């Protein structure tokens, strides 16, 4: 038996307490339903900006909007000092429509010619993935008759530092260190490219790798200055943690329970069909690796940034965070997930409860796995029950009700959780479950209208003076004049 109690902000708590509103919204807009909270990202933004201020760094925080398709979240950030990271032409169009002007946007990822051309027309900074892209931009600036050079960054994929024998995984993005001479030649040769600086993107939250990446980008910046170029920013993309859970002990107990349930077949199964979520037992020993990310992370994203900037580099003999103010270099960050901390939740209606062939409890939800899915990773915090019924005290002598949450697709793999969920109160037909903190990559990242089931609708909710207001996502206003009326 284990619980995985979600971490819940006071704003989300206030919403969950207004059961009538949530049930009305659910009935009106259908299941599943995504709620986004445009007031949350600006708060998280302040956290990052506060750390930059501690180090006297002038920086830009780019919201990587691939993490969520809600327009309300972009509109909410458009009135703050945030910048925006668009990774497709569609995202760029959304950003422009939601209040971000071109110079507040950077473009990342693979780019087709239409995307590049629109970036150039709007003065969007292009974070170039390779040399071909830079050559393509150079050709385009000529034919688009642009009056100003195109702002570009060069994404580097190599963390090679002298004296370190670090073996990176193979990576499809970025420019290799062998190509640097060619890069410098290309940038120097042409006045149509305005080289802003180097960037990288981290796929890990390891503090050592983040510090190594930053050290590498500083080294490259120094080298570019020697080459006569004028880079004036460093872009350290990705790589900050997000904590979903309230309690460390619960997370640890869960991991132990899962592993023990695989090793000891006399224990009840904690994963569907004992599938193990990436682990399996082999001759009494546990093999494999977790098919889930750590939902409990003891450090917050701001502490991680502070730690990296406080790291002293013996090689450069400088504290990494001091480099920026001392040299007039800006630090760019591209958090997606961590800007969306506590910025959304997903509701789904209970449409059936039944036993499986082997007698496991199943709670069937009116949603499918694609509605709560980040690259097939398991969602690992307990859903909150939303019910018209008063809270019931279960019999403390009885074990709590436990079930696997299944989706409504007519397909055997359609589970919302492949782990067993323990309920403090047993859900009934017609109740709703709320999954907490789903805005970053879970809501609509891999959503599809499979089996012609509808995509989840999105509503934006704000709380001001104890009053909850809501809009359909697409109608969330750029200017909240309701504040004045209220």
């Amino acid at each position: 038996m284990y619980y995985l109690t979600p971490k819940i902000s006071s704003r989300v708590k206030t919403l969950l307490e207004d059961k009538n509103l949530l049930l009305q919204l659910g009935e009106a807009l259908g299941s599943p339903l995504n709620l986004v909270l445009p007031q949350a990202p600006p708060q998280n933004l302040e956290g990052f900006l506060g750390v930059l201020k501690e180090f006297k760094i002038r920086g830009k925080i780019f919201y990587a909007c691939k993490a969520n398709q809600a327009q309300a979240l972009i509109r909410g950030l458009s009135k703050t000092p945030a910048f925006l990271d668009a990774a497709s032409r569609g995202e760029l169009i959304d950003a422009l429509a939601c209040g971000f002007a071109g110079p507040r946007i950077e473009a990342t990822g693979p780019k087709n010619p239409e995307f590049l051309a629109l970036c150039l027309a709007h003065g969007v900074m292009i974070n170039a993935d390779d040399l071909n892209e830079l050559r393509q931009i150079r050709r385009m600036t000529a034919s688009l008759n642009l009056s100003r050079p195109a702002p570009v960054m060069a994404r580097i994929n190599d963390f090679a530092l002298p004296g370190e024998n670090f073996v990176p995984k193979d990576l499809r993005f970025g420019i290799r260190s062998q190509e640097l001479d060619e890069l410098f030649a290309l940038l120097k040769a042409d006045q149509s490219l305005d080289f802003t600086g180097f960037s990288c993107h981290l796929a890990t939250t390891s503090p050592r790798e983040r510090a190594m990446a930053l050290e590498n980008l500083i080294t490259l910046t120094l080298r570019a200055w020697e080459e006569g170029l004028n880079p004036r920013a460093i872009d350290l993309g990705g790589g900050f943690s997000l904590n979903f859970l309230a309690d460390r002990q619960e997370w640890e107990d869960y991991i132990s329970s899962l592993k023990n349930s695989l090793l000891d077949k006399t224990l009840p199964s904690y994963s569907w069909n004992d599938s193990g979520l990436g682990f399996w037992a082999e001759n009494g020993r546990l093999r494999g690796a977790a098919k889930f990310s750590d939902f409990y992370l003891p450090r917050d994203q701001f502490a991680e940034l502070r730690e990296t900037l406080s790291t002293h580099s013996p090689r450069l003999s400088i504290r990494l965070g001091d480099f920026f103010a001392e040299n007039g270099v800006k630090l760019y960050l591209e958090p997606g997930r961590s800007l969306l901390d506590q910025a959304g939740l997903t509701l789904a209606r209970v449409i059936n409860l039944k036993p499986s062939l082997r007698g496991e409890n199943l709670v069937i939800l009116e949603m499918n796995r694609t509605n709560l899915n980040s690259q097939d990773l398991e969602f690992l915090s307990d859903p909150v029950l939303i019910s018209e019924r008063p809270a019931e005290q279960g019999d403390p002598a009885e074990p709590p009700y436990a079930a696997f949450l299944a989706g409504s697709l007519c397909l055997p793999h359609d589970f919302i959780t492949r782990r067993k969920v323990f309920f403090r109160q047993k859900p009934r037909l017609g109740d709703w479950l709320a999954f907490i903190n789903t805005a970053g990559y879970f809501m609509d990242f891999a959503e599809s209208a499979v089996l012609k089931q509808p995509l989840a609708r999105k509503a934006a909710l704000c709380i001001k003076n104890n009053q909850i207001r809501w809009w359909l996502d697409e109608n969330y206003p750029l200017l909240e004049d309701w504040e004045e009326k209220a």
Partner: protein
Amino acid sequence: MICKHITELIGNTPLLEVPPEIHGIANLKLYAKLELFNPWGSVKDRTAWGMLENHLKELEGGKRVIELSSGNTAKALQMLASLQGSSLKTITNRIKIPEQRDILKLLGAEIEELPGKSDCYDPNDPNDPMVTLQREIQQHPGEYFFTDQYSNRDNLRIHYETTGAEIAADLGKVDYFIAGLGTTGSSRGTAERLKTANPGLVCVGVAAEKDDTLPGIRNRDEVLEVGLFDPKYYDEMVFVSSMQAIEYTLILLRKLGVPAGPTSGAAFFGALDFLKKLPPLSRPKTAVFIVCDRIEWYMSYFKERRPDLFGGGKKQSWQEELPDSPENREIAASGVQAWIAEENPLIVDLRSPLSYKASRIEKSLNLPYDHLDRMLDEGIPFGKNQCLLLVCAVGEKSAKVAGYLSGKGIAAYSLAGGVTAWRDETLPLERSSHV
């Protein structure tokens, strides 16, 4: 004592009796097996020797040793390999103690570090050092000898034949044996030997608490994933936090004079934690725990977790003498060029050498703040007749230094807003690549 080869010094380590007033348990004799007396400082010298002693010819013949290790095993393997004219290649994503990396490099080992766990989930990512190791071996057939410490029976054997045999020879019957669980080779091999003298031996395994780090041993979850680990061999498991381990390392160090590393402290804590929970002993009993390595490798480990142990004895700092309301000695960037022309000050740039090298105000002197900070504790490195313009990144440190110096009667001024304001005014900076 004369010996011909360093490997003769592996093993035959002493047992140190822990006095009853320290362990406080009636009818108990508690011994520490001092593995730190091994030539390279740890119990892993035996493990490395056990795995390599029958393969020295292969190393002489040009094979290199390959292993997944970041600590004591890597050190010992490299030393043994190096004696045969060979070397170690180690592949790891587990280096948690920075000093270990430096020592391995000093010894001549080749380290390949793998990235940490990816948070951009990719289901096709092998995410496993073993995959990298196997690929390296396959791509270079015949080049490596893989010691495979987590599954190698020689790892068990050497501790059965030496560690366990030595304890049995010294003590005869042992009732309780307590050891940290890394590969689990030393604890299991030793315990199996001790059980031949006393089938009733109680074996206690010590591991780190969850999400905690004790160098060389596993934590609560990781222990389930080790190849040689078999829960049947351990009558009891004790999980120890790094703070508890440090507390007991200090007892070993300060009360027993044993300079052991934190994992030994964990074994000592685990031993007493287990033994104190037993019903009072009615008859004399004997317990042994392993002191697995030395303290010197782990300074950063202690500093990170117990900075209080290193804080004492700070001397008077110039910063304590800062005037309460220093004179305003700021020069605005907008007029600073005219002021410089007028006053001809010595311009002192407090930024780091790297930033100074990259770009600086013409005719300035670089005196990094960290250095000046220490120098000011000793005395003032400027004459009274010299006009100074202090410059830093944003004008805060320079204002502090100018305030202090002007209180000492020196004509020191600070550039308001620092180099940042200078840049904002688009004033010229020297930039060169040949300083």
